[in-house]
């Protein structure tokens, strides 16, 4: 990406330090991450509607297409590539078991949203799960299997 304006930033992604990297000021975070080979973060709409690019920024789920790379200066980021802890392994197994992945395009965002649901420790009903994942589009599963997987995670993990 060519640009006249650039920013010099430092941040951490999945525990790895990125120091003094130069990014075009107009580049959003998802594009930057993907340019670094972290292509698990998917880009659908680039206007915050689809949720495929959802990542974790300083402990909170955010849309990486609606955050500039420059804004990540000083932040601690986690992408789907970094979901290797015990809880997220269990979540992935549950998604597999319930066939909640299918084409996989929405999965990184769905997993991120699931993580935030589990960390909130709330015992959600199926309707509430649907409301929580309303910001993540899935065009294959019809959501049923994803809700099944998240419901199982809530019951088994929390």
């Amino acid at each position, binding site marked *: 990406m060519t640009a006249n304006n650039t920013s010099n930033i430092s941040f951490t992604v999945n525990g790895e330090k990125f120091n003094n990297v130069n990014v075009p000021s107009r580049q959003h975070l998802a594009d930057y991450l993907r340019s670094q080979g972290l292509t698990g973060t998917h880009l659908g709409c680039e206007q915050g509607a689809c949720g495929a690019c959802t990542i974790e920024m300083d402990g*909170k*789920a*955010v849309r990486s297409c609606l955050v500039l790379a420059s804004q990540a200066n000083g932040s601690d980021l986690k992408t789907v590539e970094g979901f290797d802890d015990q809880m997220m392994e269990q979540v992935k197994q549950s998604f597999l078991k319930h066939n909640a992945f299918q084409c996989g395009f929405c999965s990184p965002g769905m997993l991120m*949203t699931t993580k*935030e649901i589990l960390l909130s420790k709330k015992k959600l009903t199926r309707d509430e799960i649907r*409301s929580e994942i*309303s910001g993540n589009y899935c065009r294959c599963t019809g959501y049923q299997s994803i809700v099944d997987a998240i419901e199982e995670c809530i019951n088994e993990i929390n």
Partner: protein
Amino acid sequence: MKAADFSYHEATNIQDAINIKAKDEEAVILAGGQSLLPALNMRLSSPSCLIDISKISGLDDIKIDGDYLFIGALATHSHVMKNELVLKRMPCLIDILKMVAHPAIRNKGTHGGSIAYGDPAAELPALAVATNAEIIVSGQNGDRSIHAKDFYLGLFETAINQDEIVIGIKYPLLKQEQAILFEEVCRRHGDYAMAGLIANVNKIGNKVNDLSLVYFATGDKPDSADKTAKLYLENGYDYSNLKNSLNSEIDFAGDLNSSSEMKLHLATILIKKVLNKLEA
């Protein structure tokens, strides 16, 4: 879907941000960016510079300030929704914020950002007008307070001067006999409304004795419907009367999802839907 080129400045304090904004009339403030960045990605606007105020500390306070509930400009929607003071003193705000986009967007989107951006389809500008809120801005000549009803001038156009930045919003504390009622119609949860209504009601028991109606997603800014509110108080709910009154009072602007006729219909039935909540 990539933004045009702009420079980026991470402001260290309010004065720093004010100084840059005062000098460059094409610079815009970046708070949470959840409405601004989509607009930039779609190239609906192309500012020269983004002044990022999100890392300035002390702008996300939520506190009681005299007869007002003060919400700092940088309080995120998620933060406001979890706040004990908001839950106790202005619970309607939590119900309203549940309708603002989705959790990941509410984690980043800010209260002041939504107020200052002035999207006519957004809930918070209409809430500010309906509750007679005060919008506090800071500029080269210090701070000043603007009545919400004088703040919204037109499509994305506000009374903020070139050198000014919104630093907080003051909502009058609700009185015992007062209720803020809210309803919107949208295609899917989290979408912008096709039409929405916030009613500020004064009641004795379940009887309404004073009422103001402010619509969003109907025109180019929050639309107050004072004549229609008066008509309701005098004659109760009569679909055709209220519809005629709204049609004369508000310039309904259709969009991709709903024509102006449909918005007029929705605006009319929203009066009934909202006031039915008083009996619930």
